[in-house]
Every structure is written in C-alpha cells, then in structure tokens.
C-alpha cells in the first residue's frame, strides 16, 4: 500500500453519510433538548469497539479511529447535542472489557457517562473515569458501574478520547467558519461585501490554516492508532491533536462570531451553541497549555536521553 495520508473517497463517503444522518436528526430537535441525546446515542451507539484496523482478533463491529473521528467531526459539524466522543470511548472500553453491559449499551438499553462530564452523568447507568492526565502513566483507566461494580480494562483510552474530542472541536469550528464565510459574502458594509475587506480575508485565511492544522493532527494520531504504532508515539500524537484543537478551536469560533458582528451575538442566530461546545471541549481533559507542557516534558526527556548517550 502506498503512502496515503489524506481522506480517501471511502472516508468522504462515510463522513457525508453520517453528516446527512445527523442533520436530518437535527431538524427535529432543539440543540439543547435532552430528548435528542438518546436519538444521537442510537445513531452512534452501534459502532462498537474502536481498535487498530490490523489488530489480530479485530471485531466485526469495530471501527477504526479514522472512521470514528470522521463520525465525531460530522457530529460536531451538525451540533449533535450529545457528548459523542465520550460515548464512543465508553462503548470501546466496555466492549473491550467484554461485560454484558457492553451489549446493553450497544442495544441502547443502558445509558453511560464519562467523568467529569457532569451534564451527561445525571441519568446514566455507568460512569467511565478516564485516568488523570499524566505524562508517565499509560494505565489508570477504569470504568465503574453506578452501582459500584468495577472492571479494569486493558486499553489506554486517553488517545481515543483526546483524538475524538479534537475531532468534535474541528467539526464544530468548521461549521462556524463555513457560516462566517457565507455571511461575509452576503453582508455589505460601506457598499461592499464584508468578504472584500483584506483584514477579514486574511483572518479567514489564517483560520482556514488552523482548521487544516487540526485536521492534520487528528488524522495523524488516528492513523498511528489504526496502524498499532508504538503506544508512546500514539499518546504523544493524540496530545498534539488535543492541544492543537484546544488552542485553535476557540480562535476560529471567536473569529466567526466577530465576523458576524452584532448578529452573531444573538441567541436566535445560534452561534453560541458551537462556541460553548468548543470552549467546553477545549478546557476539559486538559487545556491546550496543559497538553503542550506534557508534550514538551516528553520531548525534553527524549532529548536528555540522547544527550546522556552521546556524552557517554
């Protein structure tokens, strides 16, 4: 297989299909309505275990992280009102643990949440506690039934969670960006479309670069995971994805509001749903700076190792 670091026709097909499903769904429910949760869970709950594509014993229901991140990106783009990243990771964890709960979730009979996502946890049957963010520990994940059962799982869930949260930020930010491009083309000020003002054109170009940066970081971490690369490498790439999205997502979202002027500040226009989603995802599970520091600690530790070696 040749070097292929771009989304293929198949990838785009999946993305479009999921996008269409989500946006059909969205037309029937208010963005903040809790009813929408179960609907969204149904849509994605069947996806099952996220695992490396070429892992021996990969389950038939499994999806690759590339596929999962396309699904979550589409969900962000359609503002699916559900903590999708966490749910997908949870399903993976439970399926990997092989409990009956896994089936209950796959069938949509049981509800799940991920700590510390309190808004999801209010009425769930199971809670997943991802391990604390830590540069050195790669284990530390466990799940726990609300009733107190506890099963260890053997999968480092952090890369999954970080990559999918980054994908959700990317989709949400892309949607706000697209809206602002449309608005800039229509809205006139001083007799010209907003899109003709160079300061806005250039800022839009910079925002597009940020979106592509997020996309590259997410795809890279996902493809490393899917190729069952070395765990430390996967973890570092996932941190880069989360750090990049946590940094760039709010910038793009806030600029999209700025480019809408006062209109973007109204509740009815709805840009705030995306802004809050992005802001929340970017602060949870480690801020941009938190992740950059962890990346840097690892980077410096690696250099120090070669340093000592070359000195010896």
């Amino acid at each position: 297989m040749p070097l292929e670091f771009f989304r293929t026709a198949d990838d785009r097909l999946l993305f479009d299909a999921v996008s269409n499903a989500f946006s059909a769904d969205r037309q029937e429910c208010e963005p903040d309505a809790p009813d929408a949760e179960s609907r969204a869970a149904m849509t994605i709950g069947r996806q099952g275990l996220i695992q490396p594509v070429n892992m021996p014993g990969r389950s038939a229901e499994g999806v690759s992280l590339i596929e999962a991140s396309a699904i979550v990106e589409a969900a962000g783009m359609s503002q699916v009102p559900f903590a999708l990243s966490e749910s997908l990771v949870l399903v993976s964890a439970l399926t990997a643990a092989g409990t009956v709960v896994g089936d209950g979730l796959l069938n949509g009979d049981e509800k799940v949440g991920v700590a510390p996502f309190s808004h999801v946890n209010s009425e769930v049957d199971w809670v997943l506690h991802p391990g604390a963010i830590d540069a050195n520990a790669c284990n530390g994940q466990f799940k726990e039934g609300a009733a107190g059962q506890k099963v260890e799982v053997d999968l480092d869930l952090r890369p999954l969670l970080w990559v999918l949260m980054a994908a959700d930020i990317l989709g949400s930010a892309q949607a706000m960006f697209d809206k602002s491009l449309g608005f800039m083309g229509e809205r006139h000020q001083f007799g010209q479309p907003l899109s003709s003002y160079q300061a806005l054109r250039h800022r839009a170009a910079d925002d597009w670069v940020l979106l592509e940066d997020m996309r590259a970081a997410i795809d890279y971490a996902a493809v490393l995971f899917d190729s069952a690369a070395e765990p430390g490498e996967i973890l570092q790439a996932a941190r880069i994805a989360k750090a990049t999205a946590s940094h760039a997502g709010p910038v793009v979202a806030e600029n999209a509001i700025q480019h809408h002027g006062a209109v973007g500040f109204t509740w009815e226009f709805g840009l705030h749903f995306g802004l809050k989603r992005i802001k929340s995802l970017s602060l949870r599970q480690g801020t941009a700076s938190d992740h950059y520091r962890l990346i840097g600690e690892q980077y410096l530790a690696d250099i120090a190792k070669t340093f000592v070696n070359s000195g010896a």
Partner: protein
Amino acid sequence: MDIRLTPEQEAFRDGLRIWLSSNLEQDWDGDRYRGPTDDVENFALQHAWERKLHEGGYGGLHWPTAYGGRGLGIVEYFVLMEELGRVAAPEGINSIGRELVGPIILDAGTEAQKRRFIPRIISADDIWCQGFSEPNSGSDLASVQTFASRTDDGWVINGQKVWTSYAQFSNWCILLCRTDRTVPKHKGMTLFLVPTAQDGLEIRSLRQITGRREFNELFLTEMRIPDSLRLGPVNEGWQVANRVLAFERGTTRLYRQARFAHELRGLARLVLSGAGNKRADKALLFGRLSARLGILRQHNLRIVSRIAAGEAIGPEASLQKLNWSILHQDIMADAGELLGDAFLEHPAAERFRETYLQARAETIYAGTSEIQRSIIADRVLKLPRARKEGV
C-alpha cells in the same frame, strides 16, 4: 508630569469611599456585579442604585450646576468612575442618558431642552436608549435609512432600528434619522428626542448569547413628534453625534479598567483558593494581565489629564477602545486556562462564564476593532489610501 491628586480631590475620594461602604449592600460582591439574570429584577436593582447615587450627590458630577449638576471637573468624575469600578458597583441602566444623550444635549441642545432633560437624567427619572444602528447599517452608521419627513407642526418618522439596549425599560430614545436623501449620506441626517411610549413605536426585545434580553428592535411607523424634540440643526445630526462620540470613546465607562481589575482580583482569589488548574503558569498569566491593566489605567490617566488641561480627545480614543475590549477577552481566555474544568463547573466561576460570552460583543459594539484600526490608520497615522475605501 504629575499624577498626584490635589488635597481637595483626595478629600472627595475619601468621602466617596465612606459613602460607598455604607450604601452598597453589605454582602455586595463581584460575583453579583452583573445583576440578577432576570431582566426585570435586574432593571429594578440597577435603577435603584442610580437613584441612590443621585441622592448621595454623585449624579451629574461634572455637569453645570445650572442644570442640576455638581459643576466639578473631569478628574473628580474619573475618581468617581474608578471607585465605582473598584467595588464593582452596578453599572446602572441609564448609561446612554449619562454618557451620550446628556453630553449631546449640553453640546447642541436648546436652553429649553437642557432645562427639561438634563436634571431628569441626573436624577435617573428618565431612562434613555439610543436608536442609531439599523439592520443594514452596522459599522456603516452613516447609511441609516429611517426617514423623518417634515410636517406642518413637526416630523413623521418611518423605519427600523436595532441593537437598542434597554429600550424596553427606557422612556426616551435618541434617534438618528435621514432627513434628506438628495445630499451625500453624511450630510442628510438629523437627531431627535423621542418618547418611547408613543403611537407608531413598537419595541421587540432580542435575546443575547448570554441569555439576557438587553438588545431591542424598534419599529417606527408613521410616528409623529413635534419640532421641539429635534436635537441640533436639521441635516447636521451626523456631525453633532460624532463630535460627542469621539469624546465618548475616550471618557465613557472610565470605570471599566477598575472593574476589570476587580474581576482579575476575583479570579486570583478563586485560583488561590485551590480551584485552579494546577498546571497553569499562574505567575506569567496574572503578571501579563495585571501589567496590561496597569497600562489601560495609564491611558485613562493620560486622557483625563489632557481633558483637564483643555485639550481635545480625538481618534486616540480608538486606542483605548481597542485595548480594553481585547484585554477583557484575553482575561476571560486566561480564566479558562487558569481554571481548566473549574471554568465550566465551579459555582464561583459563573461570573467568568457569563463575562466570557459578554466580552465577545465588546470588540463589536461602539465601533468594531476593525473600525478602530481603520480610524487609527486614517487619522493618526494618515496612511495614504489609493482611492476611497469605506473601511
């Protein structure tokens, strides 16, 4: 240079501090500074505070005694603004009256208008709103379409306004209307003073991304007003408004700097209480923000002392608008970094969550950041343009 207050000014400040400590509610604190989220309750609280300030002798501080003012100077006004900001006192609901309508009437109103309106602004008996923006104007204020036609005894007005803050609680509105379509657009506008409870004026409130309803749309249909409510000469509304707007950008809400400093102290207390993100570089972030707040205050000091020395404030005020609005957004961004999850969940971070959203509007209203940069490029730096450009 000298930045010390005179003994009289210091005495004024000390008296004010004592008055504030006994007149603000005992448990008043920063986390309630935006007032209740219920719009009606909030109006009641803000309005009551404005009346209290007036009763305390702090209304119309630097306005002429002839119209009910205290006749003090800009420095005393600055001291008042700083002290109000320092304790995060309510902002009041009538800032348009105090900071825009009052100055314009004092500048361009008739003697009758001054006697009629100024005392009631000082006492907070009248609440004013501002009908300048329109759905298709935005940054391009001179493109207003709302039209006022001459009648025998006055004017009849048709059109639509938008982004009119607190119109639903106001009894008066200052309105910018086109009065001549045949002249260049800056030369055919006139200002009017309009009672809001009047036939032909419908007010519809808009919800903002903070959840509050401050904005309104105004629909004007065959609304009739007498010529005595015209403010300034016919077709010179733009010039009259702009003269004051330039001043306004420099001097209104001088309390902002002090209020932001109050917010930053609140953020620091929350972080020091252990709610913060353990990994954040607290020293760097607080150092940078507090340094920038210091510079913001120094620009205020410069503007105030130049006005005190009789100098005019022109486009330099755009610097201050750019600085405070961007700094406020940066404080809220750093609040996220400093608090992490707690920014989203901690009860004491509620004020920062709302202010994060509110601050998005601040680089848009009263002239977007883009407009301010263009003003600086045009009027301060005098950078040549190739041809007429709007922005």
